[in-house]
């Protein structure tokens, strides 16, 4: 059996399993409320919650984009382990404050926090809409990256039998099917299986990388001979970029709507903290492995530039598969694991997108069945749009991640600062978001990605947070109206639409 035939067979088995899980999730549905559809009835326990967090956090970007970036940059890409771990560290600022409020007030979307926190103020609606728009843009970008990665992986795993366009459209249709029928329950259950598959695939790949390259030391010496700059201690600009990337991803990733909704969907606080404790270790066994794969590719593959470097992992696996049937079988497992990781991120992104558009942007009530139906229609429309866009990839996967983060990070003051500082006011927060977004988007539109190694999004955030904090300090305090506890205000039952 050829590698391509093995790949097609594995793909069919994978699709069949996903369809079966979807049917189980559909039968487990309690009702048709948005809470059941978008948050699995708020009943995710430690095991499923951990695996869905894992599968959602490690996406096509991690498995295709990160090896490509390691290949392009060299050893300084070890920063990827640090920035993926920084997400779980920054969650300390969000989870202990947000979770109790989410449970008490039945939050469904990230916007529910903003509505709750700023709902009684003049610019409360502006903060909500601006954050919802930024989140929507970031998530559409993220979905696009996943679809692109799905096309690449499917084409390689089937040795071209399933072309790029068919991989993108076929798997997008599958995601839409299981999400529409099973909601968050189907997403979380498939995520759990996909997380295990991804972990096993990467473990197999690590064993191959270490054994086939003659060991890490030999690989390092080979790279030193070919590209000495890839081994050298990074210069000042690259060090600034290292710190900036940790800040960019650590801060922006905790504002991921799909991550926030998993905080809401946890069965209890204990399950949530145990899941996050386990998540601390996943960058070591996931990001470090894909970093090593990208590094191992430097002496093996002729110079690949730009978008082409995103195919480093599939190319390595093709080489491995050519070594024999056993290797081919393991390579297929890795491919399907990568595909599973991509699918699990895409489904979570789509589910969050549909809830944000339906509830936060279109203003539908979060407790009505009609909102669930609207969310499903929104998901279908967004998926069609993203598929059409994904069929013509133009930029690298890593650049798509950076663009997404630079927008998303502008929402940080409205979440992290607002959760910890009761004097933050809606007007300055909105002004800060506008300024930060203008800096990040303006610089990006002029082709400026970083200034002295620091991302323009991080520079935008500094200006954004400065305006929000200084502007709030300059306004009369509302602390007295917050009650004797000084906690953030609660606009009970207040909705803006």
């Amino acid at each position, binding site marked *: 059996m050829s590698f391509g035939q093995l790949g097609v067979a594995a793909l069919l088995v994978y699709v069949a399993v996903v369809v079966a899980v979807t049917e189980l999730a559909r039968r487990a549905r309690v009702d048709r409320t*948005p*809470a059941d559809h978008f948050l699995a009835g*708020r009943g995710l326990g430690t095991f499923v919650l951990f695996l869905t967090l894992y599968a959602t956090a490690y996406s096509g970007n991690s498995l295709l984009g990160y090896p490509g970036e390691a290949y392009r940059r060299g*050893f300084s890409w*070890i*920063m990827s*382990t*640090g920035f993926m*771990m*920084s997400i*779980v*560290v920054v969650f*300390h600022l969000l*989870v*202990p404050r947000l*979770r*109790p*409020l989410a*449970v*008490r*007030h*039945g939050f*469904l979307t990230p916007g*529910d926090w903003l509505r709750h926190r700023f709902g009684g103020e003049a610019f409360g609606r502006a903060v909500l809409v601006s954050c919802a728009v930024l989140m929507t843009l970031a998530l559409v970008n993220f979905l696009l990256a996943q679809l692109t990665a799905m096309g690449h992986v499917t084409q390689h795993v089937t040795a071209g039998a399933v072309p790029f366009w068919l991989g993108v459209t076929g798997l997008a249709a599958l995601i839409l099917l299981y999400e529409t029928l099973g909601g968050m329950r189907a997403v979380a259950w498939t995520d759990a299986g996909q997380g295990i598959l991804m972990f096993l695939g990467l473990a197999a790949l690590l064993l191959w990388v270490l054994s086939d390259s003659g*060991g*890490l*030391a030999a*690989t*390092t*010496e080979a790279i*030193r001979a070919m590209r000495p700059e890839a*081994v*050298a*201690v*990074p*210069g*000042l600009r690259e*060090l600034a970029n*290292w*710190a900036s990337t*940790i800040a960019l991803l650590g801060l922006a990733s905790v504002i991921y709507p799909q991550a926030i909704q998993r905080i809401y969907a946890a069965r*209890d*606080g204990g399950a949530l*903290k*145990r899941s*996050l*404790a*386990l998540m*601390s*270790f996943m*960058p*070591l066994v996931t990001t*470090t492995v894909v970093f090593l794969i990208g590094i191992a590719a430097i002496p093996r593959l002729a110079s690949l530039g730009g978008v082409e470097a995103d195919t480093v992992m599939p190319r390595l696996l093709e080489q491995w598969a050519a070594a024999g049937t056993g290797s081919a079988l393991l390579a297929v497992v890795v491919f399907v694991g990568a595909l599973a990781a991509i699918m699990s991120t895409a489904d979570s992104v789509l589910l969050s997108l549909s809830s944000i558009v339906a509830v936060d942007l279109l203003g539908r009530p*979060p*407790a009505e069945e009609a909102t669930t139906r609207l969310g499903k229609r929104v998901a279908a429309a967004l998926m069609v749009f993203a598929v059409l866009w994904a069929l013509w990839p133009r930029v690298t996967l890593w650049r798509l991640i950076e663009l997404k983060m630079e927008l998303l990070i502008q929402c940080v003051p409205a979440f992290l600062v607002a959760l910890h500082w009761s004097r933050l006011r809606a007007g300055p927060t909105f002004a800060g978001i506008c300024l930060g977004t203008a800096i990040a988007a303006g610089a990006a539109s002029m082709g400026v990605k970083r200034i002295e190694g620091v991302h323009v999004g991080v520079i935008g955030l500094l200006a954004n947070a400065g305006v929000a904090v200084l502007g709030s300090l300059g306004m009369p305090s509302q602390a007295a109206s917050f009650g004797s*506890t000084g*906690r953030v205000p609660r606009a*009970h*039952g*207040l909705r803006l639409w």
Partner: protein
Amino acid sequence: MTRRLLLAGVVLLYVLSIPWYRDADAAVGVLWGLPDWVAVALGCYVGAAVLNAAAWLLTDVADAPPDASASGPRKGDAQ
């Protein structure tokens, strides 16, 4: 207090993980098969993972705010 110390340790390890204390043209040795500055960064991240996990296990993630009324709805009280 212990949790805060653990988190301070995480921040310290993050600062040490970035090789700002090395010259860009310094000779690079090999440690654990990796350039020495990469091995140090990876070691810092292993330490940070252990401390961060311990900090999470010591974190109190309550399911309702401290001032929530006993009769108040705890779940699904969507507005």
